[in-house]
């Protein structure tokens, strides 16, 4: 009677695009920047979307309202945390100093519900193996540890050694998958004739032979061809395959 396959397909389309629209509206926060609450909230929204697609024992509408409700509340909280500094601190928490001048601040650590073992792991992940080298370690709201080492343990910079350095600038993509990106060429004040000339100098007849090309900060052209002409020396596989 009821055609479950078609119903699920229609619900998948509804769920997928609703999720896509609302996640785009909720901004471009990276997974690494999410707080613990954001993370759990994301899982909940995903779970409701999955149920909307596959649970035919309830109306699609009820799940959809749940999904939209979570998305709207998340958006509302985002707005509040941006507009109101105090509420932002209450809702998101704030960075907490957990090590100062090599001493662990146990009270702050307990407030963050972090064990000393976990703190040491995070410290090692920041390539600090000696706690006495730490001037400040701050536990960020996304669960990451920011570490400021004491000045005597910091690596020497070009400035310290008074070595002159020029700004390196940015590289610009000019060919991707054989297609010339004219807008980027114009940005670097170049034209197709210049590009063709550069490609010919690299032994390339047509743009279609190029997988990727960049104008480097120094104005030179980096070209990667589809035909890489690489021998088997770089093949890291230790099985025949196929797999």
């Amino acid at each position: 009677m009821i055609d479950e396959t078609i119903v699920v397909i229609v619900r998948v389309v509804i769920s997928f695009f609703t999720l896509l629209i609302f996640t785009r509206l909720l901004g471009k926060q990276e997974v690494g920047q999410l707080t613990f609450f954001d993370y759990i909230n994301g899982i909940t929204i995903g779970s409701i979307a999955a149920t909307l697609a596959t649970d035919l024992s309830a109306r699609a509408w009820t799940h959809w309202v749940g999904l939209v409700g979570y998305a709207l509340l998340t958006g509302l909280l985002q707005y509040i945390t941006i507009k109101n500094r105090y509420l932002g601190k209450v809702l998101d928490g704030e960075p907490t100093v957990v090590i100062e001048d090599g001493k662990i601040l146990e009270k702050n650590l307990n407030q963050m519900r972090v064990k000393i073992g976990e703190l040491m792991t995070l410290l090692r992940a920041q390539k600090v193996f000696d706690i006495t080298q730490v001037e400040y370690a701050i536990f960020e709201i996304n669960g990451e540890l920011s570490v400021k080492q004491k000045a005597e343990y910091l690596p020497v910079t070009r400035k310290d050694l008074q070595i002159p350095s020029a700004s390196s600038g940015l590289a610009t993509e000019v060919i991707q998958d054989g297609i010339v990106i004219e807008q980027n060429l114009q940005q670097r004040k170049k034209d197709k004739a210049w590009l063709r000339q550069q490609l010919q100098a690299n032994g390339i007849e047509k743009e279609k032979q190029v997988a990727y090309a960049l104008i480097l900060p120094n104005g030179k052209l980096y070209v990667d061809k589809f035909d890489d002409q690489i021998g088997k020396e770089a093949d890291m596989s230790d099985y025949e395959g196929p797999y």
Partner: protein
Amino acid sequence: MKKFSLHAIPLLTLVFFIAIMHSGIVLKNPMGTEDRLYQSVNKLEENVKDKDWSSAKKEVRYIENAWKKVVRRIQFSVEREYLLEISGTISRIKGGIEAQDDQAVLEEIYYYYGQWHSLAT
């Protein structure tokens, strides 16, 4: 134009989804001569009250086919269990007619009326 499309397309998509999820309330109504479900159950009620069992048998066959047509249209906005429950009610009506048990059939017909009013609302 691009900026307008950027906002209009997601908005229209959401409106379209909402329309699909609420389409049952419109699509449960008849769209031709072969899916007049509610009127047919009304006729069946009269047949049963008159104990006209041969007409009742014809009517219930029509109801079964009409229900299949309606289900195809409303399945995107109604939960599966509710559709199965109405199918069960129609089957019990059919059984009651076979047994010529007018009391049982009338009970099921009035149960069906309640289900119909709540369907896709």
